[in-house]
């Protein structure tokens, strides 16, 4: 027991469950302060864990002391550490924002649902076997659907139902795949499966891989399976949109990456062109829709569809060296920070102007300079302009693509940056436009928490552009 007591891996899962349960017991709208305290503690734990991994390499822990397959194996390597840090950090800032954003009764069960969501994600980043991963996937999916629906408007319920359908079909397909694997090899341990699949892969295993990949792509909302994302992310309250876009879609991406590099490493190279092709299409389609849409949060949501595309461009490049993996993970982190910042900045803009449309931004650079600045900084990272984490990710991606002769991937990455510039500056130029509307209405200043949280996240995505070495060196030890 004392051994378990000091293991960060376990507490990263237990703590959010604990504060979520407490928040639920205390009733509607309660538990925000507790959540912030919990998240701060989790962030500290994740940092300790990351430091530990950086020095000693991957950590394992078997809950309860039973060996596999009876016990639950937790594993944490550099990739898990990066995802855990990102998740705790972003959620902590979003929690501060949410406490100020939600009026009483607006989303009464936000805190318990957010807690279960974070617990699910942390467990997902730490699980070592495919069945437990399924359980965490369901937990994340259901909590996320709950968060979308929690606002309670008809539009939100409709979006949540669509989301529910997508997430259930996605995890169902995944579970079916796991069952097929178990039938073929009699184990669901990720580490054991790698060797087994490498030795002999019957048709059932190919089918399993296809189902799992398809299900996870649906959950990651890769084009053309993105249909559920814009209404869910665009329609949810701002802190929820930020959680979903910045973190939740990355969880299923993380899982794809794990399977790709782990159990299916021997099969994956043969179909690597498929995710890349879909990714390129996602960049074009998502950007195009973001350029066209007339609602601000829809613009940000379609930007997510496009940015997810970049994550899949790395797959044909994963074969040689670590650069492609670093590019992908750096993009996950940069996008996570920037997109969370952009969603909550958009939320503040909408809250103050009372206008959901892109045009509602007109003239806000006067009245909400900090928020517009945060939006702009986040935009810089999304466009992949320097100095920002998004830029370094793009630089790595283009370098790797050119080194491996995949010139089209470099072209898509550069072109996608220009498309992103079109939709980002579509908003910013309106913000700088001189508006007369502000003269008659006395400008309402939002709470500092609303403005500066967005700014902090955006600034972090910029700072990542100068101090990315810790993230990159954490990934050094990750296979392959």
């Amino acid at each position, binding site marked *: 027991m004392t051994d378990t007591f000091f293991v960060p891996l376990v507490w990263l899962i237990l703590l959010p469950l604990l504060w979520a349960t407490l928040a639920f017991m205390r009733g509607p709208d309660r538990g925000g302060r507790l959540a912030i305290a919990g998240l701060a503690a989790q962030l500290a734990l994740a940092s300790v864990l990351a430091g530990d991994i950086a020095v000693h390499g991957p950590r394992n822990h078997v809950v309860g002391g039973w060996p596999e397959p009876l016990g639950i194996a937790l594993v944490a390597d550099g990739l898990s550490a990066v995802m855990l840090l990102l998740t705790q950090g972003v959620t902590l800032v979003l929690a501060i924002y949410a406490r100020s954003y939600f009026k009483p009764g607006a989303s009464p069960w936000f805190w318990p649902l957010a807690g279960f969501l974070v617990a699910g994600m942390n467990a997902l980043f730490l699980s070592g076997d495919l069945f437990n991963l399924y359980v965490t996937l369901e937990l994340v999916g259901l909590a996320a659907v709950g968060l979308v629906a929690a606002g309670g408007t008809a539009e939100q319920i409709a979006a949540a139902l669509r989301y529910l359908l997508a997430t259930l079909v996605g995890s169902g397909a995944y579970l079916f795949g796991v069952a097929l694997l178990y039938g073929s090899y009699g184990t669901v341990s990720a580490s054991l499966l790698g060797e087994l699949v490498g030795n002999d892969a019957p048709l059932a295993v190919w089918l399993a891989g296809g189902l799992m990949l398809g299900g996870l792509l649906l959950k990651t909302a890769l084009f053309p399976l993105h249909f559920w994302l814009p209404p869910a992310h665009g329609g949810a309250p701002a802190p929820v949109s930020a959680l979903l876009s910045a973190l939740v879609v990355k969880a299923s991406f993380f899982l794809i990456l794990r399977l790709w590099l782990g159990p299916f490493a021997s099969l994956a190279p043969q179909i690597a062109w498929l995710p890349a092709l879909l990714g390129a299409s996602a960049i074009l389609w998502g950007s195009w829709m973001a350029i066209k849409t007339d609602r601000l949060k829809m613009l940000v949501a379609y930007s997510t569809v496009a940015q997810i595309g970049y994550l899949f461009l790395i797959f044909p490049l994963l074969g040689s060296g670590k650069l492609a993996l*670093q590019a992908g993970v750096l993009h996950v982190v940069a996008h996570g920070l920037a997109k969370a910042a952009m969603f909550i900045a958009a939320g503040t803009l909408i809250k103050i102007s009372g206008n959901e449309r892109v045009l509602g931004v007109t*003239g806000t*650079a*006067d009245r909400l*300079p900090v928020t517009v*600045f945060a939006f702009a900084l986040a935009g*810089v990272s999304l466009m992949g*302009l*320097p*100095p920002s984490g998004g*830029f*370094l990710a793009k*630089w*790595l991606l*283009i*370098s790797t693509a*050119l*080194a491996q002769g995949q010139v089209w991937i*470099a072209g898509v990455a*550069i*072109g996608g*940056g*220009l498309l992103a*510039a079109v939709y980002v*500056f579509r908003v*910013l*130029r309106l913000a*700088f*436009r*001189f*508006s007369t509307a502000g003269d008659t209405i006395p400008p309402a200043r939002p709470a500092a928490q609303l403005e500066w949280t967005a700014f902090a996240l955006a600034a972090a995505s910029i700072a990542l*552009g*100068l*101090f*990315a*070495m810790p993230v*990159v060196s954490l990934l050094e030890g990750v296979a392959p």
Partner: protein
Amino acid sequence: MSINELLPLAVIASSLLPGLLIFTLPEGNIRLRTTLNLFGALAKLGLVGALLAGVAAGEDYGFRHTVLPGVELVFKADALALLFVSLSAILWLFTTLYAIGYLENAPHRSRFFGFFSLCVTATMGIAMAGNLFTFFVFYELLTLATFPLVVHRGTPQAIRGGTIYLAYTLLGGALLLAGIVWLNQLAGHSEFVQGGILARLASVHPATLQAAFVLLIAGVGVKAAIVPLHGWLPQAMVAPAPVSALLHAVAVVKAGAFGVVRIVYEIYGIEFAQSLGVLVPLAAIAAITILWGSLRALFQNDLKKRLAYSTVSQVSYIVLGVTLFGPIGTIGGLVHLVHQGIMKITLFFCAGNYAETLGIHKISEMDGAGRRMPLTTLAFTIAALGMMGAPLTAGAVSKAWLSDGAQAAGMAWAVWVLTASSLLNAAYFLPIIYRCWFRPAPASWPHEHILPAGRRETAWLLLLPPLFTAAATLAAGIFATAEFSPLGWAQLIAEREYLNVGK
């Protein structure tokens, strides 16, 4: 960290930190904002002075920071960097003073000066970049920091001008990025080294290196406003006068021209570029730009637009000088980087003075302006004569070295281009000067904001900066042979660049 590492960082910080602080200041806090602005500008001048003395004595200043494995942010304050750094640092001080006077009582000044400082920070980064990666980081930062200044007024025209500016510069940035990553791939790094780094890549097919050259030059050519990539510059005229000064003299077009210098001399290497056969086409494009800009300037009635086309033409003098193989042409191009800045900023200050004081925007409205505003018009006249290459001005020095360089490089046609451009310069500047001094003034000015008081024809802060820079135009011409003159420094650079050729 040693002092030689700290100094370049301090040059960056001396505008970055005041800029960031200014963003947070409330609009009404004029005194603190002005203090911060001037403190930053003066501190930077002091630091640059220290660097100049050190580099002349042979010191090396540099700073490295690893951002990714094998990718470094490198600052290097060498002689070439300092040419641009000193120009920008000096002109920044004058432009700041001018902007304080120009924007008196205008809205959003904290935002304005914040981005203004960021622009200069980016320019310092561009000047001191030690490799193409660093250059690109600050090149794009400059784009981002100038956009809010171009659209500062928030009018539909301003927004339109800003959008066109962005479209051009971001597209240019994308080309540049592609070129840089490609080159990094080929050469393994993109460090600026005297004499270039590509000469040893004999195994790479020349067509590959030529294609990369086109990408890189197109990328920086957008900011340098090389025809046909110049379309943004006349459109960006909607910006307030201090911003125009910044775009045309201190930062943006200079960043482009400076990029051409670094790429030709320290990436490709002048000899290798010559053997690749990329210099002559570039010289031809520069020549076309010089003539096209001057021709278009002739037909503009809007004063700032005429000046903008004049910039298009004059900046390509620098590019032309770079492509003239041989140290004399190099010196001509480099010295014009400074001279064009001093002269063009004077013209833009004056144009701003006419607009702010009398409401004059068009050349047809300038009749008799010299009698109402003699000092401003004197400054304007000196700078315009300099642009034509009249004796005793900075322009004469540039032109003489460029012409000699063209002769030495065996490109006599370039001499004709320069002569034709001088004539065209005369054709579009002399009528303005004539109107100002010799035509009778109208009964009333279009929109007189500032009334004369004694000898003061307009606000002091608007008047003094152009007088200083006009005096500098003369000084750079008359004292060209002094050790620390722009010409002296350009000779030092050329000496070091050509000494290292073939190493």
